């Protein structure tokens, strides 16, 4: 709202200052979260080009991007419960972005697996899919995320209407599949995958309890 003082420079500054606290919170949080979510990727690139990924860079990149994808997915799943907890809508405004970050890291993870780890060898990839349950679980999770990422635009939300919401409930299944993927591939130290499993159960449990009420 423009002040009655109209063009006066002084009073419009006062007006802007009065609006500032509201403006700051609303406009800064999204770029801030975006920056926080992209930083690990920049670190990975830096580590890659400075040669500090260690003697087995393919495994290192695969592990790192996989862990990041799971973390982003869990964060995106935590935003709806957070809205209820904080009685504030700002968390859900970050949902699309965090979901897309989860897909981004998953895409990089899968690309590294296919291009660098398996070098696009169809026989090796097929054997992995057929014989390793953790590869199948990871594949299920990624395949579910593809249509979700593709229908994340405002236009698609509008066009799909109710079907959009049912489609995007697929993220619960993707979350379960990706945590199973991690539990099944871990050797010896299961702490990290089990922490993710516990977080996922809390996040899905919250929705289940709400559904029952």
């Amino acid at each position, binding site marked *: 709202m423009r002040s009655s003082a109209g063009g006066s420079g002084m009073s419009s500054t006062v007006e802007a200052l009065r609006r500032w606290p509201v403006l700051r919170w609303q406009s800064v949080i999204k770029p801030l979260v975006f920056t926080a979510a992209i930083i*690990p990727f920049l*670190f*990975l690139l*830096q*580590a*890659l*080009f*400075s*040669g*500090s*990924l*260690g*003697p*087995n*860079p*393919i*495994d*290192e990149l695969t*592990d*790192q991007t996989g*862990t*990041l994808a799971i973390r982003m997915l869990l964060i995106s799943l935590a935003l709806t419960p957070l809205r209820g907890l904080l009685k504030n809508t700002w968390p859900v405004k970050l949902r699309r972005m965090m979901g897309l970050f989860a897909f981004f890291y998953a895409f990089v993870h899968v690309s590294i697996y296919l291009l*660098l780890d398996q*070098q696009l060898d169809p026989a*090796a990839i097929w*054997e*992995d899919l057929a*014989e*390793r*349950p*953790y590869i199948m679980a990871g594949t299920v999770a990624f395949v579910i995320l593809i249509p979700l990422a593709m229908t994340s635009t405002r236009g698609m939300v509008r066009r799909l209407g109710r079907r959009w919401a049912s489609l995007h409930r697929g993220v619960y299944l993707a979350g379960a599949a990706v945590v199973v993927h991690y539990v*099944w*591939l871990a*050797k*010896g*130290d299961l*702490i*990290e995958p089990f922490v993710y499993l516990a977080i996922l159960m809390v996040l899905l449990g919250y929705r289940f309890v709400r559904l029952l009420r």
Partner: protein
Amino acid sequence: MRDWMKMAGIRSSEITDEKLFRQRRQLLQASAAAGVTGLIAMPAMAEGKALNQPIVKSSFSTDEELSTKETVTTYNNFYELGTDKGDPVRYADRLQTEPWSVTIDGECAKPGVYTLEDVLKPHAIEERIYRMRCVEAWSMVIPWNGFSLADLIKRVEPNSRAKYVAFETVVQDDLPGVKRNVLEWPYREGLRMDEALHPLTMLAMGIYGEELPNQNGAPLRLVVPWKYGYKSIKSIVRISFVEEQPVTSWNMSAPQEYGFYSNVNPERSHPRWSQARERRLSGDTGGLSALFASKSDTLYMNGYAEQVAELYQGMDLQKFH
């Protein structure tokens, strides 16, 4: 799993060897790329102490390209020091290796507590370049320094009831990995007597002509090149001659996944990942070319089948895996 945040602070150590110049240069490039030199912490890995005795070259050695010392000493599985590949070098200083003694007991004529010096003294030190195949589907080529385990076994005169040899790793309560029960400590391994006496089986006290770094299992470790790496137990404090097959750590942790024998076998997949191929970790660490290195086929018995096949004649190695 290494955290991305840790990674920025990690940089492989400075090692003085024939590749010193190249590595220094890489390091400088790394610093430049990192922008902030202060971010690049040098892990505490002192320059290795050269072994001060003559080293005999062994005819068992492979002529394959050696993995760099940096690779061999910065990418390790030594769960007492942590489960991340970089943890053993990071926490290497925490392992106390002086004084060191090895308890030798069980079915033998000369049991006792032997100091490290007692153990090593009578043996001529060889250099043996072996392939090392990890169950995680990567491999290295490592120049070990040490001697045949058989030579030590003969000294302590096992009796006819000694059918197996059991080994234990040191447990020091303040090691970061020991505080968590990822495995049940002490780490335990074992060999059948004929495997232990096989000429390929060695006790190592050095690599690259230098004393074994802590992260590689100082001061004394086993090397059994035809078996998955976890059989080659590190930092040995106990060697026991026993009548029954001893329990082994990974078998205790997941019996359906890790058998007692653990011979490298591309035909027998680990239930959760393939053992058909492996990634050789060899050349310069950190080079972008490492991203495009292809895997190679894993060889039966890690390529030592000719020497060791007779140990397993008539055995079903799918069952006794």
